[in-house]
């Protein structure tokens, strides 16, 4: 099969199937986790639940990442913290502010937004790739991490790493014909979309869910139900 045909399949029916599986899978995870031990809150609040949610996001996203030394996570695992932070920052920048990705959002949502110049995105991609490699090496040599790493974790790493590398190769026009590089990137992206609901990468959504719940509980200033 010609690469052109293959690319059309990956951008067309395969992407369609992957995105529907991703949506269905994430709603499945959300419904399951929501009703897992769901109980009515019969204890009156002493504080503000919404305030608690607000504070947890303010601290967790806008303040603490910039003064990491106050946290034990940073002091005990500086590499994980820094490389993980840079990885997430680069991922966010590439997905939302890379021109080709914005065009994907635009085609789905119906509206677009300004994007960053391509060289900036290239740098973010390079930072993301280096961070992921650092995290992999850390996982390979760290005595505790080695013991708790399972097959699924290696798979998670690979599935996240591939879109970064194939995307970089494609945007820099390295080694392959553009259609081949584009196809490889689409394979990686379609795989990622399918794998996310089945794996711990679903934390991209469940993180916000659990942070909201915990923030509300802290803000409530009373016993939990």
């Amino acid at each position: 099969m010609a690469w052109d045909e293959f690319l059309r399949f990956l951008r067309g029916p395969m992407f369609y199937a992957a995105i529907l599986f991703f949506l269905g899978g994430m709603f499945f995870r959300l419904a399951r986790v929501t009703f897992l031990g769901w109980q009515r809150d019969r204890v009156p609040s002493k504080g503000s639940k919404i305030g608690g949610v607000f504070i947890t996001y303010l601290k967790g996203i806008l303040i603490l990442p910039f003064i990491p030394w106050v946290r034990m996570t940073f002091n005990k695992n500086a590499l994980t913290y820094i490389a993980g932070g840079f990885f997430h920052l680069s991922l966010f920048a590439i997905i939302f502010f890379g021109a080709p990705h914005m065009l994907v959002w635009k085609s789905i949502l119906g509206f677009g937004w300004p994007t960053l110049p391509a060289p900036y995105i290239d740098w973010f991609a390079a930072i993301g790739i280096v961070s992921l490699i650092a995290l992999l090496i850390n996982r390979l040599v760290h005595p505790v991490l080695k013991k708790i790493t399972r097959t699924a974790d290696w798979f998670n790493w690979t599935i996240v790493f591939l879109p970064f590398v194939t995307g970089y190769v494609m945007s820099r026009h390295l080694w392959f014909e553009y259609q081949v590089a584009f196809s490889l990137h689409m394979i990686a992206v379609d795989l990622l979309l399918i794998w996310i609901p089945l794996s711990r990468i679903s934390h991209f959504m469940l993180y916000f869910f659990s942070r909201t719940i915990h923030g509300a509980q802290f803000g409530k200033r009373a016993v939990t139900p």
Partner: protein
Amino acid sequence: MAEKTIYEHLKDEGVSRREFMKFCGLLAGLMGVEFSPPVKALAAVKAPDPAQAVATALKSKPKLPIIWLELQDCAGCTEAISRSWSPSLVNLVLNKIALDYQETLMAAAGFQAEEAKKQTMKKYHGKYVLVVEGSPTIGEDGIYCTIGGRSNMELLKEAAEGAAAIIATGNCAAFGGIPKANPNPTMAKGVWEVITDKPVLNIPGCPAIPEVTTGTIVYFLVMGKLPQMDSLNRPMTFYGHTIHDHCLRRPFYDAGKFADSFDDDGALAGHCLYKLGCKGPTTYNACSSLKWYQGLSFPVQSNHPCLACSEPNFWDGGGFYQGQSAPLNRPDVAAFGIAAGAGAALGLAMAGANAVNKKRAEHKSKSEE
């Protein structure tokens, strides 16, 4: 009396030797003769002169007859040829060297034209070049395209049988083009899909670049064989690079400077048209290097994104103004709702089953106590 050579034909038409050598040089450059295996082999012995190689061939070889069939087409490729570098290059090649049967351009019509074609096919059996413009259609035994009461498939097979080489010019002939667009009611196909016993060289484009068609015909004339082809049977000389590779807006792409609409500052400054749907990065053609109308311009230079008109299925390859990275199929609200609903229902069912199991286990442990 021996058959006149091409050079003798041209001399009779009033072409001077100086003009002839310029013409040979131009053709040699256009075809990339310098890089063809025979000339490369010659280079090992002595310094090659590509223009001389072309001139020698044209001086020694007889006129090459061409039969040009039009099937499901708009005659756009013919129109492009008739408006190209005329009267210098294409005109010389097609009108004075070669073209024997071309329905749009020939003066003869009806039975007279068909008779001329039949005579050419008979006289030059096994020697003529068949150029096809427009897509063959196999639906209902080819009844959707008939000429002189005969189906297109019948005409194509008849002409292909005695051809020394077959060239499919334009996207319709090469890959089915617009007639093949979904839902393709006539079952249009590319020529190479229906003629499988002979190599078919594809020159896709909508229309095909006239100099590419001409250059390929002359290559066959000079070298006696079709040029090196890629996996889609396109001549490597002209389809070896993408539009993006040689695009004059490429530096803006590399610098991340894009036009966001057709009338913004970016568009006025000549920035890259990628965000406006340009398909240049995946489109193989010579537009950005050869350009059109004596090198005057090409679509991207004229502020319009590349439509990928030389690629297979270009009519169904996503919106022309939709970014190339955008998915070809995207879920609508209904599909989104069904997927989300199914996922949520399954999650709820599993949570319910878990709750029931939990209660049962609690009940069991209590009763055991």
